[in-house]
């Protein structure tokens, strides 16, 4: 047999029908849904008189529009209330398990999938949310879909798919202190741009990827979509199995051993080829930060922002100029020392326990600077409990940060957590688009270390100046 990539192996095992000149019918092992992108899909089912084919393969949560203020099960407005109520009644009517607001298993969809062990190597996983790429960290083929496709999966447990090309992103070397998984993926976005991965599924390989724990790998795969790729994958290994073992929905006992045997086989074969390869030298990476209005507009934090003459193409120059205008920043200047108003630590990119530990490490014995609002939002109730057991909540609160309930919070700004017009934020989330964190708000994307260090200083700060001095 020809050597195959991880992507090819997962694809081959899940293709139901593949004919020339037509999209393949791809079987979906796990379907995650939330309140925002599912209502119209259920309406479609009802209009056609269809049932959900395999309700046990769909899991629902509430995360996008749910407020994160402590100990209050409230909703932001009547529209959000109606949407949440509709998810609840849809799940009831069609027999889908729902981790509703208030349920101890509730949390951000891409946090709870892995946490509860639904996410496993070799699975095909979809959700009406582009950050579904997160689950690829386990060697699953996982990607975001639109609401029409949510309906397709509910009705048939399948999707019509064209096979993507493969892009290997090889990250070799050893990360320096205070350089994290987030910096790897921000560096990739800066290198290939937000359209660079269009049409591809990424496989992340190399010693620096192998050295990451599962939470770091999830951060990397999560932002594959910010580099234009629908999916990012990492071959499963001991780190993967260690994370999964004993979780709620993974095989147990002898079944576990058999599963691990199968999962090991998924790794890309020696000699398999990718359509394209990008190499990143991990030894040379520094903490990264974005300066503009898409995640590709990023740089090493110690660098000055680009100047106009760096862009040869007129439309790129125009895009850069527009971004500088929106951000109210001067080309060629440094971001270090730029005063900020808000720090957001959370989102499906960086709200897991290791992210919170990193942030707490910076906040410990320090205070958030005067005038800076800092939100720390755990990705799930499990993470919240774990953080509180470790005393991290006290570190955050003593530093002057707000310790919140789980949810998407200020990453999506449709739940009461948002920037005010003109405010600057350092955020651990994934998108710095105009208005993404609130109309008129300005976002610098960075790692939890950089975000926490910036909160302490009240300005954009290289975490190494706090941690390594």
């Amino acid at each position, binding site marked *: 047999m020809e050597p195959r990539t991880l992507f090819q192996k997962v694809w081959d095992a899940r293709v139901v029908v593949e004919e020339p000149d037509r999209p393949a019918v791809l079987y979906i092992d796990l379907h995650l849904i939330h309140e925002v992108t599912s209502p119209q899909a259920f309406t479609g089912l009802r209009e056609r008189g269809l049932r959900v084919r395999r309700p046990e393969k769909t899991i629902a949560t509430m995360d996008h529009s749910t407020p994160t203020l402590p100990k209050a099960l409230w909703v932001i407005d009547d529209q959000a209330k109606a949407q949440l109520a509709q998810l609840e009644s849809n799940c009831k009517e069609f027999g889908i398990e729902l981790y509703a607001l208030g349920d101890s298993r509730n949390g951000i969809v891409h946090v709870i999938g892995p946490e509860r062990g639904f996410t496993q190597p070799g699975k095909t996983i979809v959700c009406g949310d582009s950050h579904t790429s997160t689950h690829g960290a386990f060697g699953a083929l996982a990607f975001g879909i639109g609401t029409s496709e949510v309906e397709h999966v509910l009705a048939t447990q399948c999707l019509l798919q064209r096979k993507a090309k493969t892009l290997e992103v090889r990250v070799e070397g050893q990360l320096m202190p205070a350089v994290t998984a987030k910096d790897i993926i921000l560096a990739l976005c800066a290198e290939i741009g937000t359209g660079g991965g269009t049409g591809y599924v990424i496989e992340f390989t190399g010693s620096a990827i192998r050295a990451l724990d599962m939470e770091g790998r999830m951060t990397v795969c999560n932002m594959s979509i910010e580099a234009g790729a629908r999916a990012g994958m990492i071959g499963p290994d001991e780190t993967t199995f260690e994370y999964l073992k004993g979780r709620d929905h993974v095989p147990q006992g002898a079944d576990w051993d058999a599963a691990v045997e199968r999962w090991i086989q998924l790794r890309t074969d020696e000699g398999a080829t990718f359509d394209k390869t990008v190499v990143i030298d991990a030894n040379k990476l520094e903490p990264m930060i974005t300066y503009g209005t898409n995640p590709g507009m990023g740089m090493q934090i110690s660098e000055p922002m680009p100047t106009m003459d760096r862009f040869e193409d007129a439309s790129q120059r125009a895009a850069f100029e527009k971004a500088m205008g929106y951000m109210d920043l001067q080309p060629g200047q440094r971001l270090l020392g730029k005063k900020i108003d808000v720090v957001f630590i959370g989102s499906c990119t960086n709200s897991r326990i290791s992210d919170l530990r990193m942030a707490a490490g910076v906040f410990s014995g320090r205070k958030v600077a005067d005038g800076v609002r800092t939100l720390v939002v755990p990705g799930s109730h499990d993470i919240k409990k774990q953080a509180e057991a470790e005393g991290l909540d006290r570190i955050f609160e003593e530093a002057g940060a707000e310790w919140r309930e789980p949810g998407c919070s200020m990453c999506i700004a449709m739940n009461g957590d948002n920037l005010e017009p003109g405010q600057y934020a350092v955020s651990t989330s994934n998108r710095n688009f105009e208005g*993404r964190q609130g109309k008129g708000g300005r976002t610098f994307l960075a790692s939890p270390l950089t975000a926490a260090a910036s909160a302490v200083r009240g300005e954009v700060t290289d975490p190494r100046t706090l941690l390594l001095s």
Partner: protein
Amino acid sequence: MAQFTTLTSHAVPLPEENVDTDQIIPARFLKVTDKHGLGDSLFCDWRYLKDGSNNPDFVLNQAASQGAQILLAGNNFGSGSSREHAPWALVGWGFRAIISTGFADIFKSNSLKNGLLPVEVSEAVYKRLMEAVQLDRSTEITIDLQSQSVTALDGLETTFPIDAFSKHCLLEGIDQLGYLLSFDDQITRHEQQRT
């Protein structure tokens, strides 16, 4: 799904790259449970001033844009989230086709399921069209799906790629779910064998 055969219309020029789904429709409008009525929120933060009135500088508010069914936009259109609200809002405003040099994957897939045709052209063709449309906003562009061609001006003619299946569905106005449901037996066999 609405059929798409051929379309002749003037176009709205939006010469910006990487127009993301948060610009097409900001997240705060995603609390709806219906797919209709999103046209008013299209490009909301660019289109309206603080007091809610129309921003006269934004292209969509200009008299010459009214009635246009084609959007002519910069590279990597529709990047960002998977929200199908983006094509719903574009269709809700009246667009039936978008011409660009490139589209984000999920946006493209969503558009094709809503009778909204993504037309990918070369950089040279895009520039020529953009120049002509900006010079004369009444410039008409014809998109013919059967021949996969774009014609405009005197002698500008180009073809665009589309996969055979999506083309067939658009030409006939066929919904993809119906097609997918026809594989019921194969899906059942797959489930028995593998899961």
